[in-house]
């Protein structure tokens, strides 16, 4: 049986019809990982023994008639999400040998539902980055061009789905870290409403915008995973956002749709192929009766500045626990100060930059001035979205202005890497759901994504529209040059 390019939904059918076992499916992805991942470097750890054991347990449940959404489905998880008994490194030397004593809530839910955890996916250290080059374990490569970045920070998760190493992957998105690599790797990357999915067991980067997101081949597959992992959690007081509906709809009435076309997202700085791809989506919607409503969100251009003020402040506070005494690397020294310096010296360059920037932002005087300003503009960004929702149901935008750039091209220019997230940070700062899905290809054969943003809690409607667009304008996965 040809399992190449299977979706979660197709695998579900094969499993439920007993045409395949979870063990066969798991062995297929383990084989692919072993054969090809030394080139892509999407994974940091493969748990073959654990995965096969979980697959056998899933097969037993399938025989007894159990058919939950992810039962027997192999997946990978970004390595900043805790997995009991397996290393969780956050791609940092500081946590190189850390083994979590408990599962993150999302992992516990997936385990209970019978999903098969294949291993851990690469990321920018502590999820700081847009290229996965900040991983202390080496960069992930874009499956469509091994000399280019996969995006980040969930670059390993996105590359793994694109390379067909798993049926879905979990990532985390603080300011675009699921949507950015999804766009660059040609897969679906869904960032939920803030508070829809528990963050318990996600190594905190910036707690006020961190969410766990889903990378998959289709929006429908992402919705199947969302059904399992969403919901309140006694271990995360912020996991309180109730979703308006419980699943995606099969049909969509195009004529009922009001789609916002925000000037600030589409007017400047876009690669022509990105604009062409987005315009095709817009034209399709228009031809099928949807109302395209041009509008303005003037706060958009300040998103990156607000994001880096607020998240750096939160990063410097959240990474204070890695001090050589409580968490992480532990090496003795002659004084307390020296203990801190030696142990925190294992942070990579980007983590150091963000910690120092956050320390500055949280200092009295000029730094504090930036923080107060950013909090104010953050309120404006949310206000702008609220104004938009009075006129439209969703916003249609590009995900990233340009396709994947070359490895090392921007590594010494952190500001240009930060600006990669220009179209992604506003949704994160406002906590609203957003999804990137593949809509085209550049002249060089690199994937291009488009983004839909929706109101808080309307996640399933957002995924319904995304799936409808994927069905109407399919952008099929292409053959990868290194696949034999």
């Amino acid at each position: 049986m040809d399992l190449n390019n299977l979706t979660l939904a197709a695998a579900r059918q094969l499993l439920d019809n007993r045409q395949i076992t979870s063990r066969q499916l798991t062995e297929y992805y383990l084989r692919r990982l072993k054969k090809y991942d030394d080139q892509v470097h999407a994974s940091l750890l493969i748990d073959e023994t654990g995965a096969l054991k979980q697959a056998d347990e899933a097969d037993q449940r399938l025989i007894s008639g159990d058919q939950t959404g992810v039962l027997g489905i192999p997946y990978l998880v970004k390595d900043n999400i805790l997995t009991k008994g397996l290393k969780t490194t956050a791609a940092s030397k500081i946590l190189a040998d850390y083994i979590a004593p408990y599962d993150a809530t999302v992992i516990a839910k997936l385990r209970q539902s019978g999903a098969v955890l294949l291993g851990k996916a690469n990321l920018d250290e502590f999820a700081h980055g847009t290229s996965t080059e900040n991983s202390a374990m080496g960069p992930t490569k874009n499956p469509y061009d091994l000399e280019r970045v996969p995006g980040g920070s969930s670059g390993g998760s996105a590359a793994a789905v694109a390379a067909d190493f798993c049926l879905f992957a979990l990532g985390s998105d603080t300011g675009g870290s699921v949507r950015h690599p999804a766009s660059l790797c040609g897969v679906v990357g869904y960032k939920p409403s803030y508070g829809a999915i528990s963050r318990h067991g996600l190594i905190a980067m910036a707690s006020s915008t961190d969410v766990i997101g889903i990378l998959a081949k289709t929006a429908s597959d992402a919705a199947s995973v969302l059904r399992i992992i969403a919901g309140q959690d006694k271990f995360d007081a912020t996991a309180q956002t109730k979703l308006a509906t419980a699943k995606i709809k099969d049909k969509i009435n195009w004529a009922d749709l009001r789609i916002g076309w925000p000037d600030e997202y589409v007017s400047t700085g876009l690669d022509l192929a990105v604009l062409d791809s987005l315009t095709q989506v817009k034209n399709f919607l228009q031809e099928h009766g949807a109302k395209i409503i041009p509008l303005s969100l003037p706060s958009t251009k300040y998103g990156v500045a607000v994001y880096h003020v607020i998240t750096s402040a939160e990063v410097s506070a959240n990474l204070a626990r890695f001090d050589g005494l409580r968490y992480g690397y532990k090496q003795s020294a002659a004084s307390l100060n020296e203990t801190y310096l030696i142990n925190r010296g294992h942070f990579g360059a980007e983590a150091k930059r963000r910690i120092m920037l956050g320390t500055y932002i949280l200092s009295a005087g000029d730094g504090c001035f930036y923080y107060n300003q950013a909090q104010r503009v953050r309120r404006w960004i949310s206000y702008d979205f609220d104004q938009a929702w009075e006129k439209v149901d969703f916003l249609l935008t590009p995900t990233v202005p340009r396709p994947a750039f070359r490895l090392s091209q921007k590594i010494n220019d952190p500001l240009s890497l930060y600006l990669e997230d220009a179209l992604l940070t506003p949704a994160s700062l406002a906590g609203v759901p957003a999804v990137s899905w593949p809509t085209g290809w550049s002249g060089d054969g690199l994937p291009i994504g488009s983004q839909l943003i929706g109101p808080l809690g309307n996640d399933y409607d957002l995924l319904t529209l995304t799936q409808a667009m994927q069905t109407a304008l399919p952008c099929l996965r292409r053959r990868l040059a290194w696949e034999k």
Partner: protein
Amino acid sequence: MNMKLDKQTISHLANLAKIKLEDGEAEIYSQQLSDIIGHLNNLSEADKFIQQAQLTDQIDGYQFKAASVDLSADEVATWPADETAASLAMTGSQPGQPVTIPPIRG
């Protein structure tokens, strides 16, 4: 505001953040963080826009919908014994004994 984070300021921030800088790093970070601060200065322009558009009251009084939290009852829960043991083992400590940390010599 036109801030430049010079080498001395970077060294001061690194000291506050308990981060050891290697030779030459202060200079690199000074350039990179000054570039970033330069971008953050755009926020002043945002303030002007808010005032000119007469949005000050709406924005200063804005309440985030995503941030509304109903606190649950503060009840003590029992953590699974194996997870407690694994956590303590990582610190090199014994159940019922104080948590130990690496010794500070000198």
